[in-house]
């Protein structure tokens, strides 16, 4: 019997290397859990038929000595990441039966390493939402309390990991879509530096923000995935070349790094008192562990979410114009081409996708462009500069990961702005392109997870892993 509950990537790797169990046995153990739990949790939209044959390939790698750390690791990928020959629907009816014609480079890396891609995980339609309730295929439930949401948009990946339905999972972030579900499901979620992981083969939402982001049962697992997947890709014009990464990293490295900045002004007045209490306790623990805690001001950060809800819909309205029922995806017939477009898009897109397409069309339209979009990109630049200035003084910016605890299914469905506010503390890192990690920081008396978020300068994921592992020891 494999001790799945306490398994980590390294433990599984060592065990398979020693022959304590095979990749096939490990994969079968996860498939059994999925069979028992997925009906209730609904973390996966599909389990791939070739999972076991991938496991057999992994076992060959162990036999012939070419196994790497990810070989044979049962992994779930979010439903917006292309895996050649497999359905990828972005949680949308418009792509319900869409089959990927190539694999995303991040998937290619996983396959080269011999990871076992178990299936595709549920998500909010086109990665728009904060609860996975906007999936066209029904919501995912939070494994800690199935009457509550798992967060979103990568809620399927977070829930799969938390419910031991995978040993590692991948999601994507545009604004909090990995950190917020990581917080709600009690796992680790890393949003890497923008440009670190290839966006090629990821169904785009907001191109200037999207980033493939790993989850982990612990910080070390997220670190392993990040280190394997963070590579320059010539197919992605926003992927950062290796030499530039090294340069940026060196510039952003100091001799001594133990100063934590807390922007209390962003949340001291109206944060849920239970979350505030947990956050203060975490800060005290960090102080005792030798970190210096200072109060910092980020005057523009409070506009982050407003800026995000202008820039992102603008990019969404452009990206989603390609789904027109002509070349692939949902097709509704009409008397002429225009009617085909309008009917296919009306029936193919869900409510939130339509809302954001129209909002994006509005902020980019004549007469509103300057007041909204143009202004937003300037404020975004201020947010970015302010963050870079802050990192001259401190090594980490720390806040709670989410302003809410996991809420009840349906609670925020009728109020889009209230749903948007879930990502309040996540937005600055996405707009500034800096890496940020969500780490579990305990449980409420009802057993719901708390989470703390550390943010670092560009390409300093290594410092996030270091402080993250330290925090795991002291929490």
């Amino acid at each position: 019997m494999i001790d799945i509950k306490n398994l980590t990537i390294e433990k599984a790797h060592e065990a398979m290397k020693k022959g304590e169990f095979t990749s096939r046995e490990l994969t079968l153990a996860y498939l059994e859990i999925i069979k028992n739990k997925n009906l209730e949790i609904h973390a996966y939209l599909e389990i791939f038929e070739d999972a076991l044959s991938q496991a057999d390939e992994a076992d060959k790698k162990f036999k012939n000595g070419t196994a790497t750390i990810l070989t044979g690791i049962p992994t779930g990928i979010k439903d917006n990441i292309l895996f050649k020959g497999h359905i990828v629907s972005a949680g949308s009816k418009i792509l319900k039966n869409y089959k990927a014609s190539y694999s995303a480079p991040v998937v290619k890396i996983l396959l080269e390493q011999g990871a076992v891609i178990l299936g595709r995980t549920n998500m909010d339609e086109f990665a728009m939402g904060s609860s996975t309730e906007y999936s066209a295929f029904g919501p995912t439930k939070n494994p800690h309390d199935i009457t509550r949401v798992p967060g979103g948009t990568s809620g399927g990946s977070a829930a799969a990991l938390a419910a031991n339905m995978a040993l590692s999972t991948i999601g994507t972030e545009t604004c909090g879509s990995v950190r917020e579900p990581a917080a709600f499901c009690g796992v680790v979620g890393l949003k890497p530096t923008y440009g670190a992981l290839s966006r090629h083969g990821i169904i785009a939402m907001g191109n200037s923000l999207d980033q493939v982001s790993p989850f982990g049962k612990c910080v070390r697992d997220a670190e392993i995935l990040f280190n394997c997947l963070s590579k320059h890709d010539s197919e992605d014009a926003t992927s950062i070349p290796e030499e530039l990464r090294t340069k940026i990293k060196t510039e952003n490295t100091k001799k001594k790094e133990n100063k934590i900045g807390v922007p209390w002004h962003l949340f001291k007045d109206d944060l849920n008192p239970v979350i505030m209490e947990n956050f203060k306790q975490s800060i005290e623990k960090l102080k005792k562990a030798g970190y210096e805690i200072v109060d910092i001001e980020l005057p523009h950060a409070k506009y982050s979410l407003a800026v995000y809800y202008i820039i992102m819909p603008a990019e969404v309205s452009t990206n989603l114009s390609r789904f027109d029922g002509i070349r692939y995806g949902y097709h509704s017939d009409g008397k002429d081409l225009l009617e085909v477009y309008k009917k296919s898009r009306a029936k193919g897109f869900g409510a939130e996708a339509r809302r954001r397409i129209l909002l994006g069309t509005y902020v980019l339209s004549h007469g509103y462009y300057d007041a909204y979009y143009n202004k937003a990109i300037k404020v975004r630049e201020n947010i970015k500069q302010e963050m870079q200035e802050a990192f001259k003084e401190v090594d980490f910016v720390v806040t709670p990961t989410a302003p809410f605890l996991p809420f009840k299914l349906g609670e925020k469905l009728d109020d889009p702005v209230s749903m948007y506010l879930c990502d309040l503390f996540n937005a600055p890192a996405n707009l500034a392109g800096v890496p940020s990690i969500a780490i579990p920081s305990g449980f409420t008396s009802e057993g719901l997870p708390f989470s703390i978020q550390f943010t670092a300068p560009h390409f300093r994921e290594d410092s996030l892993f270091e402080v993250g592992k330290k925090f795991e020891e002291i929490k």
Partner: protein
Amino acid sequence: MEIRDVEKLAELARIDLTEEEKQGLLKDFDSILAYVDAIKSVKVDETKGGESLYNSWREDEPAVRDFSLDIITEQFPDAKDGFLKVKKIL
């Protein structure tokens, strides 16, 4: 914003909407725009451009790309002789 503005946006975005959907969107937009309007009060340097972006080029060389033509063509909603078939434009 008024209902005709929603209709105009839907026309531009090529999405059919029912009357009920239009009303719902109008209500949502009022609350979303009220929230994002906060940025109007931010003072920014109007003489500066927006993002500090630059182009990243790669050499224009022929390369093999891994994709499946079969998977692409088998997903055409309508096809003739292996070509995508669309309704006439004019």
